[in-house]
């Protein structure tokens, strides 16, 4: 019983982390029709920044770190979109290749700066004590992480559904030519959404740090998880990313715990199933 409950919680916290990672990917894809392969690298960059910041400044608050790193990575993403991706608007394949090239550059730069050993990210001191609930002991930080993901989901949902900016983004997703025609600056939206997605990935990297720690290859571990989540949930759909994250989080956690060698195969079974019977994903719409 203890095993199932603890692993269940681990599933939830990994799911929350995956949502933070894949929601940005999904947003970017939905608006820009761009598979951003730099996304895993943005996440890893966030984790390394967190490792450096939290280890060199004793007592630095992890939430402030996440905010600061998120803004930094968002700025980098925005610059990348403005300077490089923008030139390739008419060339989707070129865009993918450029994001792939960028991910190589970032991950190699991390390796150069911080070496090949993994760097643990300290858990915030006030969250280190375990929480007792119903006679079971839970790591508090993981509980908080689940809360974070839900909060982020609510904020993103409100941003997209209840604000003017969100309405413009939705208009751009549905019909970008028409949106341009009625005076929405879709190209500015592209920069904003790309920066937002990159920023969320960077902040997710910070929050995931205490669980995953920063190591070379973190980007290559996280990117396929994000891909599987969005393929499963439906590319460009926020609820899809949310549901897909928790499905994949659960499967991955229990898979690794029960069949460690086969976890990777089990992980992609639901993806195959969805592709076979519902190629647009659980919550996806058919892209006209």
């Amino acid at each position: 019983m203890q095993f199932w409950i603890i692993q269940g919680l681990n599933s939830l916290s990994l799911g929350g982390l995956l949502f933070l990672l894949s929601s940005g990917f999904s947003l970017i894809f939905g608006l820009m029709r761009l598979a951003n392969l730099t996304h895993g690298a943005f996440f890893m960059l966030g984790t390394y920044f967190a490792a450096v910041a939290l280890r060199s400044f004793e007592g630095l608050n992890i939430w402030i770190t996440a905010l600061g790193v998120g803004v930094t990575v968002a700025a980098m993403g925005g610059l990348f979109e403005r300077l490089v991706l923008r030139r390739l608007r008419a060339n989707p394949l070129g865009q993918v290749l450029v994001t792939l090239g960028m991910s190589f550059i970032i991950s190699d730069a991390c390796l150069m700066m911080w070496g090949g050993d993994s760097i643990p990210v300290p858990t915030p001191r006030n969250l280190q004590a375990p929480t007792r609930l119903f006679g079971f002991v839970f790591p508090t930080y993981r509980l908080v992480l689940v809360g974070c993901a839900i909060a982020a989901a609510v904020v993103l949902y409100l941003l997209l559904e209840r604000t003017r900016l969100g309405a413009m983004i939705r208009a751009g997703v549905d019909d970008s030519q028409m949106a341009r025609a009625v005076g929405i600056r879709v190209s500015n939206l592209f920069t904003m959404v790309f920066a937002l997605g990159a920023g969320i990935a960077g902040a997710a990297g910070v929050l995931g740090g205490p669980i995953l720690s920063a190591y070379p290859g973190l980007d290559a571990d996280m990117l396929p998880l994000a891909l599987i989540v969005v393929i499963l949930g439906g590319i460009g759909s926020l609820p899809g990313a949310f549901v897909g994250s928790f499905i994949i989080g659960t499967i991955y956690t229990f898979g690794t715990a029960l069949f460690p060698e086969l976890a990777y195969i089990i992980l992609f079974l639901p993806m195959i199933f969805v592709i076979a019977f519902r190629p647009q994903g659980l919550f996806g719409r058919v892209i006209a």
Partner: protein
Amino acid sequence: MKWLATIVIVASFALPPFFAGDFYINLASQILIASIFALSLNLLVGFGGMTSLGHASYLGIAAYVSALLTSRYGFGHGAAAMLSLSATVVMAALFGLIALRASGLGFLMITLALSQVLWGLAYRMSGVTNGDNGVAGLTRPAPFGIPLETPASFYWFVLFIAVLSFLMMAIFVSSAFGSSLRGVRDQPRRMAALGFNPWLIRWITFVYAGFWGGISGLLYVYYHKYIHPSALSITSSAEALLGVIAGGSGTLGGPVVGAAVVLLLKNFASAYVERWNMLLGFVFLFIVLVMPAGIVPGVEKLTARFRGKRS
């Protein structure tokens, strides 16, 4: 004249072992292997319009199956090669079924995810694949009793296979089937209206490309006598894709030139800088931003202009 020129060129490929040092002969073998790999990927990317970021799967599967069968289960090289190519074809057929449910970026993401899964398996299933240590202590085959241990003999062996596979792929794309493949790439709906089955045409191409990817995988493992999960990594797929794009996708010569450029760059750059991945990333940016059509079409355009001026 054209035939004569072709024969002279092919014959000149056979010459390096007579004057070059072992280092360069080995480098040439590696270039040929990378060329087969890039050519097979080009069937998908250039002629089929299906950009795959998971082509290393087929190289890796063939290499791993052959390595494990010969080193651990005592198979002969002939049987191991047959079995590993069969495994590769089955794998490509399955992956094709999955990936071809989507097209465009969806196809790219699915191929990437599938190949990352294989990469993860090669790392984590250490009971079978030996994990991060890789499978070492492998041997090269001796077809018809001819040992391939010297760089020269191995080079000629690879050259023979490379010429064969180049011809087979050239015949494939210039056949009626190849025309229908290009038709499906450019106008899938019209082709469907004409009674072709676009899905089947794509799937057959996918499997055929997987087969030649498997051939290059066998040569790869024969050359290195060692296999490591990194052969399955996204970097490995990306290098091949860069070769195709850099050389010029949709041409027959392009991937050969591109693969050679990438490999030479990797070899010579790694003598001076440690950061191959970073350099690879910058080359990606450079090629896409500056030379999007690739080297071979670029040069063709230049020579066409040159000829136009003279005549």
